[in-house]
């Protein structure tokens, strides 16, 4: 189909989805404790987090405000490292018992055979493991000499179960940039079906680490790498949802750019805040489960998420791509709302 027509239809689709704002995807930041100390961590998690894990019954009370959840509604359990919770299986079972689905994001360090089985038994349906390069680069980024060995084992377990909708995510940085071909080969050989690549957001620890940020020319090469790899059909590789990529739209992902934060994606964060993706500036929280009815907030608030016209400012103010981009991913905005932190389109425009 003609790209312009496709884009026009996709704009309509997005408009309609925004109007309906059906909650399909709920992040639960169940802990901010972590067993690693990754260079790119956006949440500044630590071994001794200032927050206690959120008690399961607090989360369930909020979850139970959702009446008639959509058929594909999924709770995405995230952290920190969710596997540090001793009751993670119980959390999963309680969610699944309600007819809802659940999935997990993990660094894979604690994902051994026992854990794999107990999570499957508890109804785990989807899993994402982070792999940030081959041995040296992965261990460097994760600040841990055993982390590659551990995640390699975890990947092996995850691919052995067809029931799991499983993918690997890679944070592309200057260390692993030239080994992406090798990582692709490694994943194919491991039997991984899906691979998602993202770039770093200038927040958290990463903000001050120059090695983490790709130059514009490298970013464009990354788009070419994904585009070319998709044509080979050996692995379902895609660029993450993070930003609008102009001429690469519909080429590096299954569909066009659509930031669904607050439209289909919500979250309950460690302190009870109600928001969208956990990487979004926390001042955009719409309420708190400790004083508000979660689902009521979902239905009635989120105005800034569903009407993005406020992003038409700074460099987005007179941008010709605005109707397709609408100010890029929400997580690229800070509370001052003065300018977008990163414009992916600009990165590829002049290259």
């Amino acid at each position: 189909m003609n790209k312009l027509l496709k884009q026009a239809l996709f704009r309509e689709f997005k408009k309609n989805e925004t109007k309906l704002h059906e909650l399909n995807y709920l992040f639960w930041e169940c802990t901010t404790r972590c067993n690693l100390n990754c260079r790119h961590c956006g949440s500044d998690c630590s071994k001794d987090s200032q927050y206690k894990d959120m008690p399961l019954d607090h989360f369930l009370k909020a979850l139970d405000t959702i009446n008639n959840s959509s058929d594909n509604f999924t709770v995405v359990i995230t952290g920190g490292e969710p596997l540090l919770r001793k009751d993670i299986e119980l959390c999963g079972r309680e969610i699944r018992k309600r007819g809802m689905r659940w999935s997990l994001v993990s660094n894979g360090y604690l994902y051994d055979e026992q854990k794999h089985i107990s999570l499957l038994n508890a109804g785990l349906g989807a899993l994402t493991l982070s792999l940030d390069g081959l041995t040296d680069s992965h261990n460097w980024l994760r600040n841990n000499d055993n982390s590659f060995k551990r995640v390699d084992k975890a990947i092996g377990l995850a691919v052995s179960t067809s029931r799991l909708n499983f993918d690997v995510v890679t944070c592309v940085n200057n260390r692993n940039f030239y080994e992406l071909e090798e990582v692709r080969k490694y994943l194919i050989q491991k039997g991984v079906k899906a691979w998602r690549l993202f770039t770093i957001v200038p927040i958290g620890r990463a903000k001050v680490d120059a090695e983490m940020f790709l130059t514009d020319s490298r970013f464009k090469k990354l788009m070419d790498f994904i585009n070319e790899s998709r044509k080979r059909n050996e692995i379902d590789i895609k660029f993450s949802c993070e930003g609008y990529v102009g001429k690469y739209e519909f080429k590096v992902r299954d569909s066009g750019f659509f930031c669904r934060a607050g439209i289909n994606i919500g979250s309950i964060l460690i302190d009870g805040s109600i928001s969208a993706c956990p990487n979004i500036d926390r001042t955009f929280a719409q309420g708190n489960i400790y004083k508000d009815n979660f689902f009521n907030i979902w239905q009635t608030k989120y105005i800034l998420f569903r009407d993005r016209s406020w992003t038409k400012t700074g460099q987005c103010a007179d941008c010709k791509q605005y109707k397709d981009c609408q100010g890029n991913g929400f997580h690229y905005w800070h509370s001052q709302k003065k300018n977008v932190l990163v414009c992916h389109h600009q990165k590829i425009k002049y290259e």
Partner: protein
Amino acid sequence: MKKDWKRKIVGWLCLSSIAFVFQACYGTPQDFGNDLLIEGLVKSKKTGFPIKGIKVSVGDKMQYTLTDENGQFSFYTARMNNTQIYIEDIDSTENSLFINKDTLITIKDSIFNTKLPKVYLNIELEPK
């Protein structure tokens, strides 16, 4: 209803049934919910008492669970019309000795059409 039509047609025209399937940067792929909850009770055929510590596994036996002190077990497994279940006494004489058992369960499509498909099994083991 009208909105839903518009949604599907425009989604489809964008060549993306995948338009409805998405994931956030730090999130996971969506779970398609292709599972089945298998629950049950294992007891002694002779005494009628529940048996603790019995291993219940499916398929290639990689996924398994053990019965609790009430002889109960519960786990989610891949959705299939025919599922082979293995029941094994693995703790030697600790909870008496029982003869292992295999059973093939056949699930009707109507069960899979519910939001949370599940089956309940009553299993009796013969003492050795």
